[in-house]
């Protein structure tokens, strides 16, 4: 019975098995388990496959429909491609953690109820934190803890929302959720934290680029796209998401334009791309939702490809800043070519996967006569080419000659890049199978002459701007402050200030106490100390004199 095997749990199990193995067995396990998961997702029939009862609630940990199958499929493909790329990663924790992470992401997509969603949601946070942590640098460790804090906060919001939802409706089933109660707002907030939506978007560019050369590839795929999936299922057509998405789109572009670290450029670009999907979810028509789902599918492949090429550069040179790189096309032609395929795909050039997916979101905006949204999406599409499509390959592979002559990365890494490059082009040319997998049936035709010509104009002229304004884009040794400043600088500064004030206050109190003590001591010493008036041994005569004086005073007072 194939339904007895849950693809997500199979992958999680693969992670645990791989953790105990070394050498060839380990390589076999990390490649075969994702393939097994892929086959299980592909063959799983639609409908509810697992039912159970938990805390008095009927739960469905394994349920399949078109939407969940689409996301589970791409997650399994991603787990395989990522594992192939990371096969020569020496750090033994990373790949097992990545498989657990990928498996729990599949678990979220196949969950028919919110309680199961929550369990896998948290497992995902743990898996991904371990992936970041595996880079074994001080920066990665610190970043992984900040990352975990943000995601645990997201988890708490989600749990509170789910609890409220179950209380209100008496059901944990995961379907469309209207924004009509605080509980539902909390669920939305929990989802949006993982989507890297404002105000907590900074966790992504803060943490992802700190992972190892292979770790970032996994990270780029699962957390944000799982968030896109749950938003698609729960909050399709929520108008607020249009504005949230548009903000993310432009936030990503502006910050990526200012960035110098090649993987941080791509990290900001993830926020930008998820912004397109979130906008589509907010528009909420069948065309828009298809577009958001297709874009998530295409994005996972080309963003992984871009980060694989960046990872290869990091692997080969040990450098990550654009300022230190350049001219690498001479000795890394395969990496350069694959990086360019990723770059033209994310830019949605005709004949690439980005073109056939993003077009649907723009089309939905046009169909809905949302002029401003459509106009902003077009500007953003041009901006994508600017910040990711040209900037990344130009500064890393061309630009100036940095003098670096690194060799191409090992075969497994090149194969992973070639596989994903083939998928980028393949999906762009033969888009039929992807469209057939989308949640709603569609007859959308991406390749019409006006659309192709228009898109080429848009992209090529933004390319022209890039080269004309290149002096303004000169790389500087800078970072750009983001919301994480509040919890990395302001918060600690406030607490340090508070602690400093308290300790100063306490020190002051201590001083006062010591001064008081000293006073007491001196007084005691003066009166009772050696030779003090009250501790001297008076003579008998003096005693008799004082007693008679006392008695005399008593007499006077008695008769007075």
């Amino acid at each position, binding site marked *: 019975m194939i339904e007895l095997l849950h693809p997500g749990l199979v992958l999680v199990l693969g992670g645990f098995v791989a953790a105990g193995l070394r050498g060839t067995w380990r390589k076999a396990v990390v490649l075969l388990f994702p393939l097994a998961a892929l086959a299980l997702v592909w063959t799983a029939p639609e409908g509810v496959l697992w039912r159970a009862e938990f805390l008095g609630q009927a739960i469905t940990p394994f349920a399949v429909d078109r939407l969940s199958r689409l996301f589970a499929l791409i997650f399994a493909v991603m787990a395989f491609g990522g594992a192939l790329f990371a096969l020569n990663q020496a750090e033994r924790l990373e790949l097992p953690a990545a498989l657990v992470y990928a498996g729990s992401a599949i678990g979220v997509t196949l969950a028919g109820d919110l309680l199961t969603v929550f369990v896998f949601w948290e497992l995902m946070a743990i898996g991904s934190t371990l992936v970041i942590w595996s880079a074994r640098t001080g*920066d990665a460790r610190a970043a992984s803890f900040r990352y975990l804090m943000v995601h645990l906060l997201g988890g708490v919001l989600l749990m509170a929302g789910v609890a409220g939802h179950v209380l209100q409706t008496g059901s944990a089933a995961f379907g469309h959720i209207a924004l009509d109660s605080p509980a539902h707002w909390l669920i939305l907030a929990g989802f949006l934290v993982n989507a890297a939506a404002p105000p907590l978007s900074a966790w992504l560019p803060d943490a992802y680029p700190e992972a190892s050369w292979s770790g970032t590839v996994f990270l780029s795929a699962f957390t944000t796209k799982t968030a896109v999936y749950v938003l698609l299922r729960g909050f399709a057509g929520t108008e607020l998401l249009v504005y949230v998405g548009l903000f993310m789109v*432009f936030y990503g*572009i*502006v910050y990526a*334009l*200012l960035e*110098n*670290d090649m993987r941080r450029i791509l990290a900001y670009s993830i926020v930008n791309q998820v912004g397109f999907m979130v906008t589509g979810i907010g528009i909420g028509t069948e065309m828009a939702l298809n577009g958001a789902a297709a874009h998530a599918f295409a994005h996972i492949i080309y963003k992984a490809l871009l980060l694989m090429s960046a990872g290869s550069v990091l692997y080969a040179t040990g450098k990550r*800043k654009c300022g230190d790189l350049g*001219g690498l*096309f*001479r000795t890394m032609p395969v990496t350069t070519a694959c990086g360019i395929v990723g770059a033209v795909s994310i830019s949605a050039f005709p004949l690439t996967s980005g073109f056939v997916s993003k077009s649907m979101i723009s089309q939905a905006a*046009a*169909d809905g*006569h949302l*002029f401003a949204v*459509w*106009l902003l999406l*077009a*500007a953003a599409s*041009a*901006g994508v080419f*600017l910040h990711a499509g040209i900037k990344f390959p130009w500064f890393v592979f061309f630009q100036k*000659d940095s003098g670096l002559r690194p060799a191409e990365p090992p075969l497994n890494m090149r194969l992973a890049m070639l596989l994903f490059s083939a998928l980028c082009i393949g999906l762009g040319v033969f888009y039929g199978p992807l469209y057939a997998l989308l949640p709603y049936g569609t007859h959308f035709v991406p390749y*019409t*002459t*006006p*659309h192709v*010509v*228009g*898109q*080429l*104009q*848009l*992209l*090529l*002229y*933004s*390319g*022209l*701007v*890039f080269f004309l*304004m290149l002096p*303004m*884009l000169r790389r*500087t*040794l*800078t*970072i*750009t*402050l*983001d919301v994480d400043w509040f919890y*990395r*600088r302001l918060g600690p500064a406030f607490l*340090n200030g508070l602690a400093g004030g308290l300790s100063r206050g306490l020190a002051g109190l201590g001083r006062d106490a010591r001064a008081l003590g000293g006073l007491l001591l001196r007084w005691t010493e003066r009166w009772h100390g050696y030779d003090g008036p009250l501790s001297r041994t008076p003579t008998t005569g003096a005693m008799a004199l004082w007693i008679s004086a006392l008695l005399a005073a008593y007499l006077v007072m008695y008769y007075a």
Partner: protein
Amino acid sequence: MDEHWLARPATRKLLWRGFIAILALTVAADFFVTGEPHFGIEASLAFNAWYGFLACAALIVFAKGVGAFLKRPDDYYRRRDD
């Protein structure tokens, strides 16, 4: 050692010329292609070309403006000021 053919000045000049020719071609194509514009602005000549150009220029200028306020040295968070 000889410079890589792609980095030679002659090649770069050729690439620029090719790029400009393609830019001109995409605009020229606009005269022969009649789409079904959803919005009036789309009917303007080479809408996507000038719109893409202006949007990107505006984005770069805006980013520079943001950068003027929010850029910090890249060891900002590593520095300990105590």
